[in-house]
């Protein structure tokens, strides 16, 4: 397949970068530009927003110049191109000009899909730039960053870096390069802790998971982080309520029922059932009642019934953690 052979060649006539992660899109562009400059130092780079590419502009740009210089044309947000311009681009895809590298950045998705398909069909080199939503992906990204920089980093160091910086890939990348530049030797937990401390992201669900297993201290700490990073308060009470609720539901469900049946009856995904089973040791019926009432009070408090919603949330978390040890 043409696509396969073209994949490795950075100077393929057409490069397609698909996804919404800005950092990766920029890197894809930078790679192509660097390769082009390496081949010819006088390469002309045109970086165009979709509005800048009017019908006819492309033909003008790709027409041979007097000095036959190399050119890289970058079209950003190509899904937003007007219909007429897309026609131009498609026509060009059929007959790409020599010495010219076209880089199309596309968000993926349904908008402007015709252009995407046409480019793929024409054998464009494709770079995937998806948004990283899973924590594991971000961890892998950090590891890869250190590896590219030729540095070794311990897994704990990578984890605490992700914890401290959060989900912005650009910030993660710059933190990695900063660490690689500033520190000699292996990058470990202590090094990361010297430069980055704290926690950039804490969700209500993390608070709830800690609270319902009775770990009051950790839950309170996580709650403080969640408040500090500006988590919406009703979201936290919602998470607490659903944590306690699922324990109440599962605790009174018939024993020995198959997980799939239970999942359907209780309205929870099957993987969650096992986790809630783990959490539910130590809970008693009265504990669930007390905890739920505390959460309801906190919910009223965060919606304006109390002067200090943070205190109300802390109180609810402590009540839940205490209830989680109410049996035996």
């Amino acid at each position, binding site marked *: 397949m043409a696509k396969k052979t073209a994949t490795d060649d950075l100077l393929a006539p057409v490069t397609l970068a698909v996804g919404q992660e800005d950092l990766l899109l920029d890197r894809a562009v930078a790679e192509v530009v660097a390769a082009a400059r390496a081949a010819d130092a006088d390469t002309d780079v045109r970086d165009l927003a979709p509005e800048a590419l009017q019908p006819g502009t492309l033909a003008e740009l790709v027409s041979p110049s007097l000095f036959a210089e190399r050119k890289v044309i970058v079209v950003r947000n190509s899904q937003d191109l007007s219909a007429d311009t897309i026609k131009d681009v498609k026509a060009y895809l059929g007959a790409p000009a020599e010495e010219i590298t076209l880089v199309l950045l596309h968000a993926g998705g349904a908008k402007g899909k015709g252009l995407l398909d046409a480019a793929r069909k024409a054998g464009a080199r494709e770079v995937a730039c998806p948004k990283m939503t899973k924590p594991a992906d971000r961890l892998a990204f950090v590891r890869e960053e250190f590896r590219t920089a030729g540095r070794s980093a311990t897994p704990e160091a990578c984890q605490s870096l992700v914890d401290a910086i959060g989900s912005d890939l650009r910030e993660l990348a710059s933190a990695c390069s900063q660490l690689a530049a500033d520190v000699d030797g292996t990058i470990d937990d202590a090094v990361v802790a010297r430069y980055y401390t704290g926690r950039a992201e804490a969700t209500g669900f993390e608070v709830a998971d800690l609270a319902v297993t009775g770990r009051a201290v950790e839950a309170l700490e996580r709650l403080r982080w969640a408040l500090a990073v500006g988590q919406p308060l*009703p979201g936290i*009470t*919602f998470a607490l*309520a659903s944590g306690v*609720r699922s324990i*109440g*539901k599962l*605790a*009174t*469900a018939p024993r020995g029922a198959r997980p799939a049946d239970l999942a359907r009856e209780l309205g929870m995904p099957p993987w969650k059932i096992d986790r809630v089973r783990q959490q539910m040791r130590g809970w008693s*019926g*009265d504990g*669930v*009642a007390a905890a*739920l*009432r505390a*959460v*309801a*009070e906190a*919910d*009223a408090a965060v*919606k*304006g*019934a109390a002067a200090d919603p943070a205190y109300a949330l802390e109180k609810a978390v402590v009540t839940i953690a205490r209830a989680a040890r109410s049996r035996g």
Partner: protein
Amino acid sequence: MPVWDDLVGQGPVVESLTAAARDADAFVTAVASGEAPSSATSKMTHAWLFTGPPGSGRATAARAFAAALQCVSPDRALGGVPGCGFCDGCHTTLVGTHADVEVVATDQLSIGVKDTRDLVRRSSLSPAGGRWQVIVLQDADRLTEGAGNVLLKAVEEPAPRTVWLLCAPSVEDVLPTIRSRCRLLTLRTPPVDAVADVLVRRDGIEPELAAVVARATQGHIDRARRLATDERARARRAAVLRLPLQLGDIGGCLKAAQTLVDSATEDAKQVAEEVDAKETEELRAALGAASGAGRRMPRGTAGVMKELADRQKRRSTRTQRDTLDLALTDLAGFYRDVLAVQLGTAAPVANAEVRDAIDRIAASGRPEQTLRRIEAILACREALDGNVAPLLAVEAMTMALRAG
């Protein structure tokens, strides 16, 4: 049939309203015939506040008074009381088509400043029929604080022929500054027999059924009629009254709460389906879009569509809350019966159809517990009013009901 007939068991209120309507009529007649009206002893005034428990007929009273003000019956000249119920003025007011009677009710959570400003502007118009410009504000308790302040001036000194009729459950529900500008009329809960009587007389409901629903709703006329005529309302109420027996364990409590909230959501969805789709389609048509969902809208109309969607969403919240509130009222009534049985009072049991459940719960607990349970239900209503997540609030309540 005089306009006052729909008001059940409100003798003193009807008396003072009739007197006011008579003086108002004398005023209009005097002005029309070019005489100087004698206003010194008039019982009429320009702003009235109707209060009374839900179901006592605040809106009905206000509407009847509005009709009496617009009454053009020839009997008046012969000393008849205004409010005949037959003349043009009475009839059009009662069916809601009178040009000079504006009834303001909202299907949303509150009445905002914007709507109120508009209302104030309209209130200063002269009556088209030459009698009175009457504005009936049915949900004065839903005025936001800002909206209440907008009304102040208009209520204090309206145009010469403008009359404001505000309705609210209690005087605490409106701003003190509004309260002090109105003449207060307090309606009482109509006696059960009177409600049953009016159901039979006016709505043609079987006497036995009328007696049952009148007792079950404890003097709330509209609910009694709804219960007597709507199969679904009866089913929902029956489901709510089964709830106290389902609170054996935590799982039962959670499930009962879920069911209660789900049925309220379902109800809101049903209302939404009936009204929203039609409303949206009408607006689309008005904006000039091709018919059929998903067609492209003309440029610049997205904002209007969004506004409509927001309004529909607020209405849906209100419906859900109202339904839940109704269910909680029924539940409170159930525990009221339990308490009556526990204390051995002579008060008749309202929910006779679940007598055995009442007896069972009464025997298994003490009056203190029942009182705490009623407190929990009231606390839940308050929490819902404070915008607590409905499921969470109801769950906390069922937990409290279980604990007693």
